[in-house]
């Protein structure tokens, strides 16, 4: 079984994906061999106040067997412990924080507070580290397409202090390599979604396994914004052994979300 640790659902305001309903997304993922996916609603990433978008997302997914909802949260706006509990009651299995979409710095104190609440509730947190689709980086906005080294180091300090369960998604390979010690100390999971985690001949999936261990590397596709087979092929042809592949393609995501 292949499990996708982070996919997207719904409308992107700047581009079409051709796959906007849960049924369409499930079909597209199944064509790539993915049976289960954790999905965040795109609307929640583009709204300053994502709460209504999250609620609608939960409703849309009630009848889906293969898609599990994640909530997009904006730490700068209407987040408190009670609301995080409410999200859990609605069936959300994790929180996605997206500093490049919501316009905050992930080493800020408000993010630290969010991580403490999430740790208390046992809710995993995903940090979306890159605005993968550069066509979304309109020059009318402040241009920022990735979380930098200082910011990520500060975020990981919060993670360590809070004892939160965290996955770095779409993080650039060089950044992960540079901060490997800090990432390991924070016990963070990392995914293979970034386009800088090159497949063969550069073997960066294997490099991630060597850096973080086979129990900390996770498959995320970023579908439908990204072609889902790309990261799967990177893992399948990475040269890591069968057990490591199984862990990356399935077990680690389950462990990350289910604890």
């Amino acid at each position, binding site marked *: 079984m292949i499990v996708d640790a982070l996919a997207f659902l719904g409308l992107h305001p700047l581009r079409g994906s*051709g796959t906007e309903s849960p049924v369409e997304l499930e079909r597209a993922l199944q064509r790539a061999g993915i049976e289960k996916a954790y999905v965040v609603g795109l609307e929640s990433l583009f709204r300053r106040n994502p709460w209504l978008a999250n609620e609608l997302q939960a409703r849309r997914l009630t009848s889906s067997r293969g898609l599990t909802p994640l909530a997009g949260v904006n730490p700068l706006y209407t987040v408190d412990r009670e609301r995080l509990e409410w999200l859990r009651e609605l069936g959300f299995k994790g929180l996605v924080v997206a500093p490049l979409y919501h316009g905050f710095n992930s080493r800020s104190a408000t993010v630290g507070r969010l991580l403490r609440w999430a740790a208390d509730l046992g809710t995993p947190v995903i940090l979306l580290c890159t605005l993968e689709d550069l*066509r979304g980086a309109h020059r009318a906005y402040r241009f920022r397409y990735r979380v930098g080294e200082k910011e990520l180091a500060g975020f990981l300090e919060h993670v360590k202090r809070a004892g939160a369960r965290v996955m770095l998604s779409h993080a650039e390979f060089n950044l992960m390599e540079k901060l490997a010690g800090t990432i390991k100390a924070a016990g963070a999971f990392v995914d293979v979604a970034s*386009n800088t985690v090159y*497949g063969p001949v550069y073997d960066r999936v294997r490099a991630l396994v060597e850096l973080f261990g086979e129990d900390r590397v996770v498959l995320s596709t970023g579908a*439908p914004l990204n*072609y889902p087979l*790309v990261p799967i*092929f990177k893992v399948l042809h990475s040269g890591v052994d069968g057990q490591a592949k199984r862990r990356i393609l399935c077990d680690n995501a389950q462990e990350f979300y289910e604890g």
Partner: protein
Amino acid sequence: MVFLFEKLKAEGFHLADSHVHVFPNSEMNTKLLKAAEAFNVGRLYASIAPLELAGGFKPPHDEVRRANELVACVQRESGGLVRGMVYVNPLNREDLQLARELIEREGFAGIGELYRTCKPWRAEALRFFELAEELDVPVLVHTAHRLYPRDRPEEATPDDVARVARKFPRVKVIMAHITGGGDWEYALEVIRRCPNVYVDVGGSVPESGAVERAVELLGPSRVLFASDCLFAESVGRVESAELPEEHKRKIYYENASEVFRE
């Protein structure tokens, strides 16, 4: 689940990689050939990896010659798997004769990847398009489709490719890696009306829709499979694309046969 690249292997067909590089490091070349085999790539149109050259983006003629000799050596030893593409620095006068020799005597398949030495429409570069026209070989042009601030003034943009392609309508021009990052939508729109421009789908960026849009705007005959040394990404992209199998077959190998006259 059986993917098309696997099905093709069972049928005796192989993928043709229109844009790939070989390395001075033989260990990397071994890995390259192993990865190609795993993805059923049976033909690699390869030039030297440009970042491996001494002299940066303007290597001296001796360095260019040495690099192309290495490619010729890999070509000879590959048993038909690799066909060389001539890397040139357009600013070296002697590189023109070198390109002619390699194509005529060594059987190199084309010119390129024209890298970040100078714009392809500069007089120095146009000599190579004239040669390509005379010898009826394609020219592969490294192209950037960036959205972020430009710090590479000599790098070709889609507009540069269109400009030179219009000047040489009989030369097949391959615009490199529309899936290498940036605004591929714009890139495709710019070269749509240049029937002698082909695009390759190499590079690292997995943004969905790029391959389908290329086929929609250019037609299935002007889209070429390429890895730029990233096989999982490129095969994953074509396999994921929502296109009929006959279009994918064209992309995987039929179009390359036309462009490289195999």
